[in-house]
C-alpha cells in the first residue's frame, strides 16, 4: 500500500518505510526482480514519479543497471531477497573494489523460517566476504532512517552499502514519521579508468584501497549511534541485532543492551567495553552465530551464545525465554492449513497430466512448486531459479532413457531459464520442457515481466515472444497450448513430444486465476 500522507505520520511496513526513506534521500533509480519478502520495496518506489523504477529480468541485471546509474552519478537502490543476491554476487564482489560515484544501496531481505523461500542463508556473512558495510534495521522506523544514513556512508566512503532486513522487519508495520525529499544534483560522468576498469593492474590497487576502506568503516562503526549501548541492570547484558532486539526488550526490559545497527564492520571497542560492564553476557541473534563467533574471536571468554538448535528458523519472544535459559529449541507444532494451487489455477491441468503419465518432473521456483504437494504430488525437484530447465538435462545424462521432463514458469524462464535451454540445444540434449505461462510473476503477488508486455508501472512496452525465443534458442519443437478445457489435447501433445527424439518446449498458456479475479474486481469496482 502507498504511503498515504506526504508528511506527518503513516502506518508503513519495513519495506514501505525503507522505500520512503530512500525517496527522502533523493533516490533517482531503483531496480529489482520480485522476491518475497523484498517485493514491496520496488512496488512502493513505483508510486513516486521522481524515481526511475524497473522490474529487471533478474537480480544480476538489476544490480548492474542500478550500479551503472550510481557510477553515472545519481543515488540508486537495488533490492532482492537473500537467494536473489546469489544471482547478483558476480557484480557485487567487484563493485566493492570499484566503489561508487553517487550513493548505492543494496537491500537484501533474508527469510528466517523460510516463510516463502528454499533456504535460510544468512546474508550477514556477505559483509566479511565482500568487505562491504552492513546496516541492519530492527523496525520500519529504523528502515526509514538507516537507508538515508546508508546513502551518506556510501558517498562518504565511496562504497556500496548493504542493508539487511528479515521477513519480520520487512513485513511488520508501525507508525513512522515522514520527512521531505532531499534534492541531489546529478554528478558528472568520470572517465577514470584506474578506478572503473577492473583489469588486474588496476584491481590490485583497488583491492588495497578496499582493505583500507573497511578499516575506516570500522572506525565509523565504533562511533556510530546505530550501535547503541543501553545500560540498565548490569547482571544481564545482551549483544543483539535486527528483530531479536525487540523480542528481548519485550521479555527482559531491565537488562542492558548493545544493539547493533551498524553491524559490519564490527565495533570491537564498544563490544569490549560493553562486555566489561555486565556480569552475564549473551549474544542473541537469528540464524547463524555471526555476532557470537566474532565476539568470541575478540577473546571475550564469558560470552554465551545460543544452543545450535536455534540456528534453524526465526525467534519470537517465547523462544527467546528458552534460548536465554540455555535450553535447546522446542517448538510445539501448530498445524496450519497447507497452501495449495488456487481454485481455478491453470497449473492444475498440467500437473494432472504429468501425474497420469508418471513422469519424473524437475521443478523450479514459483507457484507450480506446489505441484509437489498432494493431491497432485507430481514434481520431484526444486533447487533454484532456472534449474527447471538445466536439471532435467543433467537427470537425462544420468538416465538417458528416463521419462524426465522439466517445468518452469514464464517469469522464471525469462529470469534464468533461457541460458539453460540454449545449453540443452547446444549440447544435443533431448526431452520436453514445459513453460507454465500464466502471464505474471504469480507467487510474489502478480508482477509483470518481459513476456507480459507491461512495465512495473503497467505501461505497455515491447513484449518478449516466448515461442520465437525458444525457437531461436534451438528447440526442435515449440508448441503453445491453452490447457483450459483442453486436457485431452494437452496429454496427447505431451505424449507425442515425449516420444520424439527431439528437444521440445510446450508453452502451456493460460492467465493466473488471481490475475483474472483482480481484473474482474477492478471492472466491477469492488477493490
Amino acid at each position, binding site marked *: 500500500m502507498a504511503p498515504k500522507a506526504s508528511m506527518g505520520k503513516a502506518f508503513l511496513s519495513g519495506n514501505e518505510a525503507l522505500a520512503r526513506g530512500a525517496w527522502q534521500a533523493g533516490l533517482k533509480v531503483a531496480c529489482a526482480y520480485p522476491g518475497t519478502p523484498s517485493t514491496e520495496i520496488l512496488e512502493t518506489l513505483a508510486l513516486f514519479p521522481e524515481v526511475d523504477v524497473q522490474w529487471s529480468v533478474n537480480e544480476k541485471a538489476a544490480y548492474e543497471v542500478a550500479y551503472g546509474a550510481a557510477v553515472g552519478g545519481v543515488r540508486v537502490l537495488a533490492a532482492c531477497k537473500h537467494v536473489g543476491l546469489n544471482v547478483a554476487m558476480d557484480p557485487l564482489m567487484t563493485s566493492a573494489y570499484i566503489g561508487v560515484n553517487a550513493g548505492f544501496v543494496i537491500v537484501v531481505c533474508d527469510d528466517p523460517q523460510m516463510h516463502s523461500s528454499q533456504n535460510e542463508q544468512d546474508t550477514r556473512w556477505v559483509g566479511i566476504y565482500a568487505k562491504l558495510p552492513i546496516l541492519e534495521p530492527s523496525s520500519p522506523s529504523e528502515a526509514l532512517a538507516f537507508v538515508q544514513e546508508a546513502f551518506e556512508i556510501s558517498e562518504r566512503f565511496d562504497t556500496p552499502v548493504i542493508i539487511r532486513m528479515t521477513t519480520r522487519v520487512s513485513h511488520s508495520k*508501525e507508525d513512522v514519521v515522514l520527512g521531505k525529499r532531499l534534492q541531489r544534483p546529478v554528478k558528472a560522468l568520470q572517465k577514470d579508468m584506474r578506478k572503473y576498469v577492473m583489469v588486474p593492474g588496476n584491481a590490485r590497487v583497488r583491492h588495497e584501497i578496499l582493505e583500507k576502506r573497511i578499516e575506516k568503516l570500522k572506525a565509523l562503526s565504533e562511533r556510530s549511534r546505530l550501535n547503541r549501548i543501553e545500560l540498565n541492570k548490569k547482571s544481564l547484558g545482551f549483544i543483539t541485532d535486527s528483530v531479536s532486539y525487540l523480542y528481548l526488550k519485550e521479555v527482559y526490559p531491565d537488562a542492558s543492551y548493545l544493539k547493533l545497527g551498524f553491524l559490519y564492520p564490527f565495533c570491537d571497542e564498544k563490544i569490549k567495553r560493553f562486555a566489561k560492564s555486565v556480569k552475564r553476557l549473551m549474544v542473541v541473534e537469528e540464524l547463524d552465530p555471526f555476532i557470537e563467533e566474532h565476539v568470541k574471536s575478540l577473546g571475550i571468554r564469558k560470552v554465551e551464545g545460543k544452543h545450535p538448535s536455534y540456528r534453524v528458523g526465526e525467534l519470537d519472544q517465547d523462544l527467546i525465554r528458552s534460548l536465554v535459559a540455555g535450553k535447546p529449541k522446542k517448538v510445539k507444532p501448530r498445524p496450519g492449513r497447507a497452501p495449495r494451487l488456487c481454485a481455478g489455477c491453470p497449473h492444475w491441468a498440467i500437473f494432472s497430466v504429468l501425474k497420469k503419465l508418471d513422469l519424473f518432473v524437475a521443478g523450479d521456483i514459483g507457484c507450480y512448486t506446489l505441484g509437489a504437494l498432494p493431491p497432485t504430488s507430481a514434481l520431484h525437484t526444486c533447487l533454484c531459479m532456472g534449474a527447471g530447465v538445466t536439471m532435467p538435462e543433467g537427470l537425462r545424462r544420468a538416465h538417458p532413457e528416463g521419462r524426465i521432463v522439466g517445468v518452469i514458469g514464464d517469469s522464471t524462464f525469462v529470469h534464468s531459464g533461457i541460458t539453460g535451454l540454449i545449453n540443452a540445444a547446444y549440447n544435443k540434449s533431448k526431452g520436453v520442457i514445459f513453460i507454465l505461462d500464466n502471464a505474471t510473476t504469480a507467487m510474489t503477488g502478480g508482477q509483470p515481466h518481459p513476456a507480459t508486455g507491461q512495465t512495473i508501472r503497467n505501461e505497455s512496452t515491447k513484449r518478449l515472444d516466448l515461442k520465437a525465443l525458444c525457437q531461436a534458442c534451438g528447440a526442435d519443437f515449440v508448441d503453445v497450448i491453452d490447457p483450459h478445457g483442453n486436457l485431452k489435447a494437452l496429454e496427447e501433445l505431451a505424449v507425442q513430444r515425449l516420444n520424439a527424439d527431439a528437444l521440445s518446449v510446450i508453452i502451456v498458456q493460460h492467465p493466473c486465476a488471481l490475475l483474472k479475479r483482480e481484473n474482474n474486481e477492478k471492472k466491477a469496482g469492488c477493490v
Partner: protein
Amino acid sequence: MKRKQDVYNITFGGVGGQGIIKASELLGWAALYDGYHVKKSEVHGMSQRGGSVESHVRFGSVIYSPMIGLAQADFLLCFHPDEHPRLKVFLKKGGFDLMPYLAKIQESVENTRAVNTGMVGFLSKYLPIRPDSWERALQTVFKPAVLESNRKVFAQARALSE
C-alpha cells in the same frame, strides 16, 4: 469501553481471502490516528494460496515486539472455525474471544466480503479508540467506491456489541 491498559494485543486469523490483512490494517490506522504507537505483523507469503493467515496488532504507549507472545492476546478475532484451535493459544487468560459472535456478525452483514469490517466494528466497542479515529482509518483503508458500504457494516456491527 474497558479500562485503559498499557498495551493492547489483538490476534487476527483465518484463511486466505477472508480479508484478515485488511481488518488488521484498519485497526492499525485507527490506533495510529488515535495517537498510539502501533505495530502489526503477519505472514502472507502463501496466504493467497489458501494457507492459514495470522495477523497481530499491538498498540499502546511503547511497543517493542511486532508479534504477540503465547497467551498474551487481549482479543482474538478468528474468521474461520477450523483455524480457532491453532489461534486460541494466543489468547490470554480472561482475554476476549470473538469466536461466539462470528455467526451473528456474518448474519448482520449483507455482503459476505465485508465480514472483516464487521468483525473490527464489533471489536471497536471494546477498544479505547475514538470514533473519529475509526472514521479516518476507514477513509484511509477503503477506496471511495466501497467506503460507504464498509462504513455502514462497521456501524451496524459496532451496534451489535452493545
